[in-house]
């Protein structure tokens, strides 16, 4: 059971700002009303952050990564379930590495 000091600081900081986001919406609404535009901005953040995370990695991952990603998206869109979509992508990548030593 090891906890690194930097990790502890990061986790405490992440927890503090997350709690702040959980309570301050409730608290703020007693004082100000957000505009439609601010609401739309906040709602759009998670999707844009997730895209930014994976786009460079996908671009660098080559044909196998692209096929695995497309399969994952298709299955997720059909089933709305994490596990089958994730397993399909992982199996494709693992199989390609095993068969072709490809990346």
């Amino acid at each position, binding site marked *: 059971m090891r906890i690194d000091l930097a990790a502890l600081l990061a986790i405490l900081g992440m927890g503090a700002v997350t709690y702040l986001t959980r309570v301050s*919406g409730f608290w703020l609404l007693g004082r100000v009303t957000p505009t439609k535009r601010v*609401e739309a901005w906040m709602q759009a953040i998670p999707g844009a952050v997730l895209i*930014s995370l994976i786009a460079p990695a996908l671009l660098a991952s080559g044909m196998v990564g692209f096929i695995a990603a497309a399969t994952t998206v298709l299955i997720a869109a059909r089933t709305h379930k994490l596990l089958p979509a994730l397993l399909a992508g992982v199996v494709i990548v693992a199989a390609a590495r095993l068969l072709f030593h490809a990346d």
Partner: protein
Amino acid sequence: MDHEITFTRHGVWAGVRACLPIALGAGVYGFVFGILARQAGLSLAEALLMSAIVFAGSSQLVALSLWITPLPVGALILTTLIVNLRHLLMGASLRPWLARLPRGRIYASLFFMTDESWALTLGSLAAGAGDGAFLLGSGLTLYVFWGATTALGELASGLVSNPAQWGLDFAFTAVFLVLLVGLWRGKSDLLPWAVAAVVAIAAKHWLSGNWYILLGGLTGSLVGAFRHAD
């Protein structure tokens, strides 16, 4: 505009019951988070601590992809804040019902507010159930599942010696892709997401560090703000 509201044990149990099926699904994410946390180099204690203190799935998964040595503590906290800003809207939407409850109960219950427990609670309150403890009950249910499955995933991941051989490094990308499919609201998301992708790829190419995540996320979401507000 404030509604009549109570805060009872009955409300807690109503929240627990309503949330159990959803908690099973969230548990799958917790399990995957545990596996990926181990791969990213977090110890069991660190992963559990993160799930117990942060308790916000997508921001925790995003944090794992930033988890390098030396740890970029500032970037981790800033990115977590940005990803979780949407909580502001969720908390604000509950105010008409919760406003009359004692402050301590509100601020304790809000610690457990997630996308799922918020949606269930809003549904329950809007249907006239009138018990604010529903938020606490549904949130606590997710909290227990999230922590337990984080630990299970960490322990299971320890059994695999070479994750890349099994394609497990792709699991990161896969989880984010599945989350994105869930966030997709239609064609109006296409332009913001394309902008985010292009900016992120360019920033990753020309800038060092993890700025590409925030730059892509901010530009993409600003485009989204103008697309959706009109």
